[in-house]
């Protein structure tokens, strides 16, 4: 998929979310959904399978996100999946987040954690990262069990990693 098309999808999602006044929520929900699609091969294959009717794929999305995301997010995600752009979903959502953050003069900070963070923890984390990097950040938290424990934050090219997985990898390398 071309960068122009990805950008066009992102712009469309941004416009709709802004028009509905739910940009922050949609951005967060789509970001988490995109990371789930990115890391889950079976989910990616199922939603990206062109032989399955678009309505059925949209139904799968609705079932997966029922009660976990707003209706708008579910509908937007169903739109992308129904259009056969499941494999490009992570790039589209990344472009959306980048556009949204750029409009607010924020830089995206992707944080991965083995468990969900509370709102208070997210606020503290955003404040701590902003102080550490000297940038205004749009923090996106992704629950990723593969990190095992701790957090890893990626802000542009900068990575702050204090996860159990990395420590274990270091031990493994030494072994």
């Amino acid at each position, binding site marked *: 998929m071309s960068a122009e098309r990805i950008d066009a999808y992102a712009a469309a999602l941004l416009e709709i979310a802004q028009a509905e006044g739910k940009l922050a929520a949609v951005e967060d929900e789509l970001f988490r959904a995109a990371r789930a699609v990115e890391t889950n091969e079976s989910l990616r294959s199922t939603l990206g399978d062109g032989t399955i009717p678009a309505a059925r794929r949209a139904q799968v999305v609705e079932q997966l996100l029922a009660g976990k995301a707003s209706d708008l997010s579910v509908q937007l995600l169903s739109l992308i999946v129904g259009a056969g752009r499941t494999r490009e979903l992570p790039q589209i959502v990344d472009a959306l987040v980048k556009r949204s953050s750029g409009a607010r003069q924020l830089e995206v900070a992707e944080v991965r*954690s*083995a*468990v969900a*963070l509370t709102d208070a*923890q997210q606020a*503290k*984390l955003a*404040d*701590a*990262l902003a*102080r*550490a990097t000297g940038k205004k950040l749009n923090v996106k938290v992704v629950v990723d069990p593969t990190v*095992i*424990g*701790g*957090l890893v*934050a990626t802000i542009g090219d900068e990575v*702050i990693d*204090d996860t*159990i*997985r990395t420590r*274990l*990898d270091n*031990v*493994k390398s030494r*072994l």
Partner: protein
Amino acid sequence: MKLFSVVLAAEDPTQSHHWLFPEIGEIIYGGLASLAVLYALYKFGWPAAKKALISRTATIQKELDASSAARTHAEADAVKIRTALGDVAAERARLLAEADTQAEALLREGRARIAAEVADMEARAEAEIGAARARGSDELRAEISRRAARATADAVRAALDERTQQELIDGFIAKVGAGK
């Protein structure tokens, strides 16, 4: 028989003055005739005979010379043939010696090459055995480390309760906030 009787009758001694000598006139005429014949022979026959003799002598001499030349030529040819035979023998000997030398050199070279190839193959085989041993050892080590890491990860994951997870998160926030 009749002719014989006539001859005998002609030779009858009783018809001559002497039974042995002829008549004087006969001697004279006979002698003159003989001289005339001899002269004629000398005058006309001798030059031709002499010429024939000279010619014959020249022919014989020529044949002798030709024979001599042929002999000389034959002897020269014989010498050449003998020389050529000698050369052929020498050439044969030289070729045989050269062939022997070349065969020896080829044999020596072949032995050296085979020895080098065998040595190379042995070295390669040893290197491959060493590499396979190292590879096997590395693979075993890697597998052990993979399994150990997986087991460690599982053990750590099982040991991480909610409280510890929160502590890790808070610890990260505190460290980042402190600028570490």
